[in-house]
């Protein structure tokens, strides 16, 4: 069974199409990256998967069933979503923010705080557990929010089909924390969590994702393994940028070098 499936999905706002004829299936435990220029519809696709963007036609399915067959609470126990930016403007302490991720689950305060602390540890922000969120830097806030969404789908017992939908999770992270996050997602995927995320670093996407979907003007123009999608042609088609794709000397994963 596929964790996520979109059939002929179209969406638009006031006549302006956002997504056109999206066909997408994501298998359980897969890590999929969305790449593409600004305004290509990457965030819209994530919103469509989450059910935040209602379509003009087509269907969105989660674990084989349409989203409308689930209650909000059922979905929240299995799927966590990290938006591009957070509106949180109230002085919660770091741990309080992460604990919000346990809200859909009735696992008890003791287990919840253990999971929250473990997620903080995983995102290397244990030291921020009792700092005020409003006083943190952008990258620190991002890691607190990441810990919150990880907390939501932390245990296999939390949901039958766990899904993480992340919109530019690496946006304000340094290289060490980017690698930390990617390793964490990879290990969670091995544990059955399905991950779909927007990335702007192609080399990173190629190194850590099983498949990459390239988007342009609301459509998926290429989808496949990193070496199939990360090509000079894709870079030219999507971004109008000439690039040389080299195999990484050690692992062979494609590395993107921008030509001038």
């Amino acid at each position, binding site marked *: 069974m596929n964790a996520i499936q979109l059939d002929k999905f179209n969406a638009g706002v006031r006549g302006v199409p956002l997504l056109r004829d999206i066909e997408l299936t994501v298998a359980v435990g897969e890590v999929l990256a969305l790449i593409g220029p600004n305004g290509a519809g990457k965030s819209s696709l994530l*919103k469509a998967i*989450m059910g*935040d963007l209602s379509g003009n036609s087509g269907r969105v399915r989660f674990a084989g069933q349409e989203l409308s067959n689930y209650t*909000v*609470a059922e*979905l*929240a*126990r299995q*799927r*966590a*979503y990290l*938006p591009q930016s*957070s*509106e*949180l*403007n*109230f*002085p*919660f*302490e770091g*741990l*309080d*923010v992460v604990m*919000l*991720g346990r*809200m*859909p689950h009735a696992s008890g305060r*003791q287990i919840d*705080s*253990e*999971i929250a*602390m*473990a997620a903080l*540890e995983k995102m290397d922000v244990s030291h921020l557990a*009792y700092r*005020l969120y*409003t*006083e943190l830097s952008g990258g620190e806030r991002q890691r607190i929010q990441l810990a919150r969404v990880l907390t*939501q789908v932390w245990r296999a017992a939390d949901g039958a089909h766990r899904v993480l939908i992340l919109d530019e999770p690496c946006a304000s992270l340094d290289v060490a924390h980017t690698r930390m996050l990617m390793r964490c997602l990879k290990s969670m995927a091995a544990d059955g969590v399905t991950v779909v995320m927007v990335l702007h670093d192609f080399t990173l996407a190629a190194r850590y994702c099983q498949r990459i979907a390239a988007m342009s003007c609301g459509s998926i123009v290429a989808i496949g393994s990193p070496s199939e999608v990360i090509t000079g042609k894709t870079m030219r088609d999507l971004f109008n940028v000439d690039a040389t794709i080299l195999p990484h000397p050690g692992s062979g994963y494609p590395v993107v070098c921008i030509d001038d």
Partner: protein
Amino acid sequence: MNVTVAQRPTSRHYLPARTALMALVVLLPCAILLAICIGAVALPVLDTLSALLSVSEQGQTTAIVLQIRLPRALLAALVGALLGVSGAATQGLFRNPLADPSLIGVTGGAVFGASLAIVLGGSNLLGFAGLSLVAVGAFLGGALAVVMVYRLATTEMGTSVTTMLLAGIAITALAGSFSNFLEFIASNEMLRRISLWKMGGLDGANHARVMLAAAVCLITMVFLPRHAQALNALLLGESEARHLGIDVGHVKRWLILLVAAAVGSSVALAGTIAFVGLIVPHIMRLMIGPDHRYLLWASALAGAILLPVADVFARVIIAPTELPVGMVTAAIGAPFFILLLRRGPKQGPW
């Protein structure tokens, strides 16, 4: 998973919420007792207590306590609680620590309703359940304004709190314009009554009003705290709250209904009392943090403490003349609000 969590360490930023709530619970009867003892005639605490506890004695003290001071202190506490808890819920709902329950138009509508009642009705003769026609007009005006604001902000996409805020400003301006027109055509005597009503006062306190306020307060405190976790989730954003399993539309409808009923009743019972709904939740958030599971109760208790105390000031500053309590809360609240603005909402507490 072998992560061991020690007992949560004492927060560096906030007081322990349970301890703070206990302290407020202890302070509340003290504030009410203070409000009963102090006034144009100061009553000894022991006499007051004996008057409260034994209804047999028919002295002057007993009459003052049971007929005048007690209803007034209780009404002040109940209205303060309603304003405090409504403020906390509004600030959470609008994700803005500087929001005020009057933002959704209820106060502007109530002023219009009250002015209309004064200009058209003229006298206090009509009315029911201890409420004057003015109070009924205020409640209806406030309710009508909230319904209009809610309708304006609701599309098939749901209710936008941003649009609600703007619609609230528009409806408040419209109601203000109508109220001004009424004041323009009102006679001098009516004008004085309108302006006194607008300043807010608890001098109309009687047993019927106390019972009414208690009923509204009971309903509010039974239903509002049920949405405390939803309010916490809403602080992250509406989409995030939905993906944490919150039925956002349902929660918003309930919150708006409860806040409108609470603020509408408080305006009807005691006129417009400024700044309690704004500063009480704000001070409580600075003290115990933004978790609504504690903040809603703390704001209700603190409002219930603050208003009787403010009313004591209103009664004694130029005794035997009473100042409208709304004037006192505004005089205390405005400088505090300016201080908050200067610090900015994004800075941490303290």
